[in-house]
């Protein structure tokens, strides 16, 4: 829990390190975007970096690493439902529209 004063004093350094990492990763995101790599690559890199940043915030600032498993399970379930909501409607488009592949290709830079 990190509830005692001494423990928290020990955490302070960690917070600053995470802060530095977040700034660096933001810089990387922008830099990669400026390189104009292919869209597929850009999506993968951008989401990967964003996930690392998000995890840092969740694990250290929100202390998720120190929480008990019950909360983790609830959040995991929530993320699972989010993914279902994100992905299943996409298949609708896929099925209903013969132009889907064409559009996916359209996502690549011309």
């Amino acid at each position, binding site marked *: 829990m990190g509830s005692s004063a001494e423990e928290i004093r020990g955490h302070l350094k960690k917070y600053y390190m995470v802060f530095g990492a977040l700034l660096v990763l933001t810089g990387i995101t922008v830099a990669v975007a400026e390189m104009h790599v292919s869209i597929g690559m850009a999506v993968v890199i951008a989401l990967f970096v964003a996930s690392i940043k998000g995890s840092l915030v969740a694990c250290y600032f929100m202390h998720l690493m120190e929480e008990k498993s019950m909360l983790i399970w609830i959040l995991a*379930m929530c993320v699972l439902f989010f993914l*279902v*909501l994100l992905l*299943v*409607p996409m*298949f*609708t488009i896929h*099925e*209903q529209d013969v132009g889907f592949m064409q559009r996916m290709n359209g996502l690549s830079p011309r």
Partner: protein
Amino acid sequence: MSDTSHELPFWKKYIFSVDHKVIGIQYTITALLFLAFGFFLMLVMRYQLAYPNQPLPGVFASVLGEPVIGEVVVNEATGEKGKVLTGDGYNAFGAMHGTIMVFLAIVPLAVGGFGNFVLPLQCGAPDMAFPRLNMASYWMYLPGGILMLFGFFVKGGAANSGWTSYPPLSTIATTGQTIWLLGMVVLITSSLLGSVNFIVTVVQLRVKGLSFFRLPFFVWAQLVTAFLLLLAFPPLEAAGILQLMDRVADTSFFDPGGLIISGVERNTAGGGSPLLWQHLFWFLAHPEVYVLILPGLGIIAEVIANNTRKPLWGYKSLVYSAIFLGFMSFIVWAHHMFMTGMGTTLSTFFQATTMIISVPSVIILTCLIISLWGAKIRFTTPMLFALSFLPMFAIGGLTGLPLGLTAADIHLHDTYYVIGHFHYVVAPGTIFAMFAGVYYWFPKASGRRMNEWLGRIHWFFSFIFINAIFMPFFFMGMAGVLRRQFDQTETLHGAAVQGLSVMATWAAIGLAVAQLPFVINFFWSMFAGERVGQNPWNATTLEWSAPSPPPHGNFDTVPVVARGPYEYSVPGEKDDFSMQATA
């Protein structure tokens, strides 16, 4: 636990109360009023359906405003003047009937009412985890409901695109739809606050000895329900905001573009998807179905255990089924969308998950039925409602299977068969469970028992009439009569089964009359019912260890639990019930 409730001024004790019991009763009474109003809308619609374009009887006509709702016509046969329901009025009534019943009546009654009142008591808690949040939740629900009803007074009338509000119809509908969306956002927020409160209360506020598997099934049902509300409602809130933007800011989230209204192309960017709304809507609205039924099943489990005087059969199966049901309910939503052309692969997937989700429902029902086996049943009023709930819920559930199969759904989709199916689940199902709950916990809330004799009359006629309303719907649906139709006699196949529609209408009027004993009983018993002690039903769960009515803070001494929830007729014990709380 000392309390200072008698020192509180009236408005703090009964109006802006933070006591979960007062809030529960506020919810119950408000929701019952909304239930009555939703029922009234239905009666007007049913009259139109039975006697198309005939002037409404005076009792309806006198309260309906013109010209939006009623229209003055002259009866050609008799020369009498009267008001008839317009098509737009019918649509508005239909949309509002659905909305009010689902979001303003049943859920607040089942969750806000029973959940609030009973759940902390059954956990042995002094109150909800966040009493002031609980109050905020009620005070968002009530204004949200009133805002929703305000729609009837704006130009064009209340929302008239169905309770599902499918775009593009809803996007271009009259102002009432905007009111509907605003009302929904408020109601969803209220619901979210409530569900957070429920989960924290169950997890953190259980008293010593009350492990998860000693919780009454009602608490489990409420816990699963709260999770459904917590995780399924936000997507509808998002969808509501998007539709609001489509209506007021000319965005085109649900508008693919090129929509021509009265010969004029709608000036939007296009590129939206009407199916997106359906996905987001049903992502909520299917779990919502289980939100409607799970608390009902919880109440029925309590009543059955108490009146059979033996433990529930398969308590753990019930619990695991409820959890599995809750989980699965998030991945079945698109079975409402088989006819949208979303594709066969996806339809097959959702058909499979739909068949899977029927298994836990059947397990729950089977456990409850087997619980009756060999019991010396006490036929009290709550038990009568519970017993009649079982077959009617079974009818509602089993008639859902053909709708979950894509091939059968092609014929049955959007017909009265669907109406019959979900009303059997919600009306003879949940509402009967709610009545069982009112009769069962009334002594706890008021310290007085409701009159058994009036209760039985109420049950008997309700049981007859409610089946007479909804049973014909299956036959009408199979004959091809479409839902949301203003006048089914305009089609040949509709006219052929018009007799069933007339029957349903008169049964609905009968059902209205059959509620009079309940209303009389409710108010009479509040002041003159037989006084009872802590535990009039000889029940085992914790709420019966508190005084009736429980004071602020609930228990005289904090209970300690040593037993499971349904230890009835334990061999060797003095009484046929062993209470959870050790004295």
